[in-house]
């Protein structure tokens, strides 16, 4: 329960500009094949947090809708990377098989994928400079 409250708090906090100068980041997330569960989004502003599942600068959990949903937040200009997943069974984690291959849809900014594991920060990061719209395709 505490964890979900924390996530909700963080999600709400992202609706507020974090700094005087803020740009809007709008994500379109597609293709959502099922309206079950939640789409969970995490935005990172540095490599170590991104790589080591550290603290994101923005998170959100949105009720899944087919075939796509939108998410908008305000962030200071800079370098960011987004991880997201469709948590179909709403258990607040990405279900994986015995060797770590995801069994639920997921996606990264720049629509990148890793060759041996998750994509590196260098591949997934993008520059937020002015109002930015990104489309992220879920990998099924």
């Amino acid at each position, binding site marked *: 329960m505490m964890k979900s409250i924390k996530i909700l708090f963080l999600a709400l906090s992202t609706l507020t500009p974090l700094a005087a100068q803020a740009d809007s980041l709008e994500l379109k997330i597609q293709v959502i094949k099922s309206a079950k569960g939640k789409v969970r989004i995490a935005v990172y502003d540095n490599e170590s947090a991104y790589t080591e599942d550290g603290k994101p600068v923005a998170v959100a959990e949105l009720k899944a809708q087919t075939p796509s949903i939108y998410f908008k937040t305000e962030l200071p200009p800079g370098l960011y990377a987004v991880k997201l997943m469709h948590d179909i069974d709403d258990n607040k984690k990405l279900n994986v*098989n*015995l*060797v*770590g291959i995801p*069994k639920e849809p997921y996606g990264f900014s720049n629509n990148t*994928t890793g*060759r*041996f594991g998750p*994509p590196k920060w260098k591949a997934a990061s993008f520059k937020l400079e002015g109002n930015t719209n990104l489309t992220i395709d879920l990998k099924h």
Partner: protein
Amino acid sequence: MMNRRELLKLLGASPLLSTDLLWARNEQLTAQQFRTQLGNKPWLLGYQSTNQNYYRANATLSGRIPKGLNGTLYRNGPGKSEHGEFRYEHWFDGDGLMQAYNINSSGVQHQARITDTAKHRHETEAGHVIYPAFGTAVPGAENIRSPDQMNTANISVLSHHDRLFALWEAGSAHEIDPDTLETKALHSFSPESEGLPFSAHPKIDASGHLWNFGYSTVARKLVLWHMDPKGAMVKLSAIDCDPVGMPHDFIVTHSHLVIMIPPLYFEQTNDTHSNSFLAQHRWYSDRATRILIVRKDNFDEHYWLELPAEWVFHFGNGWEDESGVIRFDGARASDPSAMQHKFSDIMRGIHTDTGNAHHHSYRIDTRTRRISTDTIGDQNIITEFPTIDPRVSCKQNNQLVCLTRKQDVQQGHGLLNSVSLLNLKSESMTTYTYPASQIPEEHVFIPAPLSEPETKGWIVGTTLDFEKQVSMLNILDAQALDAGPIAMATLPYAMPLGFHGKFVATA
């Protein structure tokens, strides 16, 4: 400075043109270069890409099919190794080609079909290669989310619970229609096992239970599989194994699974697109081969032993006596250089002697947890592709069928040239050497109906005659192997050299 095309033109059709110097190993191989080499080295026919998805023919029979030999030899191997001018640079990379040699009293009928994997389907639609490969750096290859995206289904065959499968090593089995060889689907033995690595050499024990392992290089885990005779999952588990190496085959006894982890370790390079998966492995000759021993009834109960660095592609069989001593055998090489280099050289038409394995025995005392190894037979004999009478699988065996070659006999094609029956007790060997124009592939032991294990039966295998440009099915009497084939069925075409097969008797 002239480029390679100009140099080729200048050299014209001179025999010197076939010089391997023109093909520096760091240059992308093209189909045209291979065709040029093929003109000078006819044995390269074994590595020629298929140019159609389906083959069917009645074989021309010489000799007689023995009474009681009735069924289908299914074989698997890489078939389509080119897309336009792109050519895979490693023998293991081509899209899987399933073959069926139906043997009955009226003769031998042959079919072959490219397995319709997702990889093959997507690349055919796109008109070019899309996915990374095991031993070839594919320019512009997509990153993959699951090994099944690059699953070529090209290594071996499994027949279990009345179903037929084409197997790869790092991903799922593909179910194949046994009559038409059409691809049914990627197979999951259970929902939780979807997409898990299922290796190419599962074992079926005397009770009909199916055992296998798989390895995940990224997760650094070994997956252990146990299915009942109807194919239902009994147990599925993952064991940490860091680093995981590249184990290809394993041993199943009455009570244990034994998996050897050779010190060939994955070391990811910064530029993964310029290096194949294989090229990102490094052999450590000064590190141990680790041997995992697992209880069949409880995968959580396991321990590790060590041997010096060695490389075994294939084991013959394993068994365990009542006192808890495990014995098994394998074709042991000192290193994986055949896979790392020679099977790439051969795709370029560079002559190389690929044989470097000699048969060895292994003994594990599960009471003292000690392992020892010894040679079997004449160490001047190179061995590979060991097979057994399937009725002694996971039980004590006294015989082994394998491909062989005397080490000092040089073949133009660099592969093995004979089939042998090795008596493991006396270490004596009966051998038939094929004509120099024929390259033998794996041979299997087919028991005569109602016979005692390892007695009457036939040793059956294919050869490629690169001079006549045909593939052949050869039937030899297991009790008179050195007399050569008692029947030969010749196809009107040549099939690429493949890896492993299974005989399924007609009910």
